[in-house]
């Protein structure tokens, strides 16, 4: 089965437990983390995760809502977007 790849972007101030909270949710919902990296850009802490949702029975909207909830708890902005939008915007 073909992978269903999405990017999770986390933006805000760095703090403990970000990766733990998100990866815990992903693990429990059968979403596999393919890649992860983080960087300070300007004044922002930015983390991105490339995840594969092919084995998860969840709808993107459900996952989005759950991540937004985690984001509210952590005081971070978290969003999830299909990888195609990034490929279209950044690669010819």
């Amino acid at each position, binding site marked *: 089965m073909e992978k269903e790849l999405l990017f999770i*972007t986390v933006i805000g101030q760095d703090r403990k437990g970000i990766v733990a909270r998100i990866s815990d949710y992903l693990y429990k919902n059968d979403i596999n983390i393919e890649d992860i990296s983080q960087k300070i850009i300007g004044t*922002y802490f*930015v983390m991105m995760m490339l995840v594969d949702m092919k084995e998860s029975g969840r709808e*993107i909207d459900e996952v*989005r809502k759950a991540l937004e909830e985690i984001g509210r708890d952590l005081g971070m902005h978290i*969003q999830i977007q299909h990888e195609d*939008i990034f490929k279209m*915007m*950044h690669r010819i």
Partner: protein
Amino acid sequence: MTLSVEEIFETASMILHQNLDIRTTTLGINLKDCIHSDFGLFTDKVYEKIHDNAVRLIREAQRLEHKYGIPIVNKRVSITPVSLIMETHAEPEKYVRMAKTLDMAARDAGIDFIGGFGASVQKGMTKSDRVLIESLPDVFAETERVCSFLNVGTNVAGMNLDAVNLIGSMLKKTAGKTKDAVGCAKFVVFVNAPEDNPFMAGAYHGVGEGDMSLNVGISGPGVVRSVVEKNRECDLTQLSEIIKRTVFKVTRSGELVGRELAKNLDVQFGIVDISLAPTTARGDSVAGIIEAFGIESIGAHGSTLAVALLMDAVKKGGAMASGNVGGLSGTFIPVSEDKNMIDAVKRGSLSLDKLEGLSAVCSVGLDMFAIPGDTPEETINAIIADELAIGIINNKTTAVRVIPVPGMKPGDSVDYGGLLGEAPIMEVNRFSSKAFLQRGGRLPAPITSMRN
């Protein structure tokens, strides 16, 4: 393929901080197959076709919003010009009934505007065209969501001044029948109107289109302003370059969403309209881009050059990003819908004359501006005719959306709220052009050589 954190962050911040969105997805629907001699059956078929497809549009558009995490602000419908499908029912009360049917179909489906209650009259008018124009004040008074257009000229036909001469009185009647003349905000008069424009109020599904098509309007003044602000020192060539690169990315997102939405709806993908369309949200201003270039307040000398540079860069970036660029693809400079434009009028830096000048290099014309309610109808017609002459002679689309607000004079302001924004009343030249306009007839089609 690997993407860097910076690239992911750039897209995320465009959406998060700079108001990047898909401004509109507009489904064009052919209504010619609904025509019936029984008017009741005719309106039933129209209702059903619009309602059912609009519901599908909203459902599928929301699905893509979730998938790509990009807001699709408006989901709308454009239809076959109504004067055309009403040729055999050309009685004024039937136009109002048809408009109410469209209004109901849009409301029930959850669509805020439906476009196409209009006619193409560049060369002459049929009985249906005339009755439609006469019916417009009642249509605007009795509906909420119906938008109307008239195309009164093309490069190959010239401009129909007899049709223009009907508009001033129609607008003044509409102004009298709708609160703060808001009905006038739903009427656009064009020359060279594109048949696949997704933006209201002027959207319609042209006769050259298929049964249905999906057109997308992207936006992103905030995104462009942000990169301009980060590059304060660069010269005009470099400025053009950074705008091109940004618009390329924005357009690609529109292309992606439009193409996939059309596929999911099983309709033809029409065009991506790359017009920079402002909203009254802070930072989402086209005039704000011009001011970020280094113009103190839009309307100051230098503004035309600035708009020309912006527009050219937008077109170059957009054309590289999508093979389906179409519609208006200019830069909208509506007064009431752009915070910096409103402020510029209020502080006296932007006049109607300069606005007309700007439209010569940027399309889309004189948009969403208010004038005193006692402006003579011939003067309104002359304002329209001047703007449209620019379109005819320069081979481009121009349009006018003017709101004569009863009881108001320059210095006053009318606040529509929401999408339509706030319209400060602009000063109009007080001298008359009545005798010239009364000549009527048609501006001949322009010569296409000797372009100076």
